[in-house]
């Protein structure tokens, strides 16, 4: 699919300003409560590839100054055309150059420390990763997979995410240790989003 083929393109938010503000509000809500699963409501005609929640989230976050890296399943798909058309973002082939990265479910994400980490003086220049996962659970007995602590979490909270790399926890521990540098992660299912800002500490829950 070429970047100029608009035949299968869907529309963006029906109201650009209000639609992206609503999604941005959800993203803020999610980032300020790490590990909490939040429904991401939107009315955009999202592309077929990738999770709808990720597409809507990136549609709200990106603009023409942003660089975006897409995992192999998404690159050259309708998702790439859609995001490029509606946001004007620049698609890059080299993930180390990207400010945003979107990894489809089933694609292996590059290691977190290979993305832009920012610097001690400018930690805001690090990458933001959107990882599509198969399932998310943040409450109930089954959810006790990870124990999350850190800013935005009263005491501790639990989260279970299916479909991440097996060594994700090791990568995350290193990412957390690099603070104030390091990447921030959005985990998304088809409708829900949960955030892992770099300040969040993750441990395997007791009993595992």
């Amino acid at each position, binding site marked *: 699919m070429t970047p100029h083929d608009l*035949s299968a*393109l*869907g529309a963006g938010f029906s109201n650009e300003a209000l639609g992206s503000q609503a999604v941005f509000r959800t993203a803020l809500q999610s980032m300020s409560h790490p590990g909490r699963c939040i429904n991401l409501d939107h009315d955009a005609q999202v592309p077929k590839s990738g999770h709808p929640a990720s597409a809507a989230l990136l549609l709200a976050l990106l603009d023409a100054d942003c660089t975006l890296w897409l995992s192999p399943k998404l690159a050259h798909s309708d998702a790439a055309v859609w995001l490029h058309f509606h946001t004007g973002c620049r698609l890059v082939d080299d993930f180390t150059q990207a400010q945003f990265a979107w990894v489809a479910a089933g694609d292996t994400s590059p290691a977190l420390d290979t993305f832009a980490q920012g610097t001690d003086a400018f930690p805001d220049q690090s990458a933001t990763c959107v990882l599509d996962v198969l399932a998310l659970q943040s409450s109930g007995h089954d959810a006790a997979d990870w124990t999350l602590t850190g800013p935005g979490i009263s005491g501790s909270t639990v989260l279970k995410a299916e479909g991440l790399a097996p060594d994700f926890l090791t990568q995350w521990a290193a990412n957390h240790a690099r603070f104030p540098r390091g990447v921030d992660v959005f985990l998304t299912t088809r409708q829900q989003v949960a955030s892992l800002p770099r300040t969040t500490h993750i441990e395997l829950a007791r009993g595992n």
Partner: protein
Amino acid sequence: MFHAFDNLAPNKALGRADWMALLSRAPPDLLECALANHLIAAPQWLRAPETGLMMVQGRAGATGERFNLGEVTVTRCALRMSGAKLDAALVGVAYVLGRSHRRARLAAVADALLQDGAQHALLETTLLSPIRKHLALQSKQRHARAQTTKVEFFTVAREAGDAGDDEENQ
């Protein structure tokens, strides 16, 4: 890249870029008349009309270094004709000078219809050739108006002979 849109070679088929160049300069009344049947149903907006600024670049004599000539107001939009299925290719795009959302919509509708082989021949006669005539007339009128301001510069030739030399000697 310099592209002479209005000097189409006779054996070359009319490309999408060519008709979009025509539509972007078409007078709104012409578009309204030719497209009246297709404007009843509201289109599905892929990008609702939006107005912004664009930097126009120029080259002296079309060959010199690129320079920024100035900013122009441009309205753009993209739409899918209503009733068309998501996979049908009836997507129209328009970039039009000025701030008229209506004009951008008209041009985009025309662009969508022109991509449909069945409608193309009809629109070629009812829309594109009148636009070409209008643009040719407009350019002729402008040319005529400019001609009235033409100034003939000529140099008075020196008279032959030794008159000049004589003056210098005196």
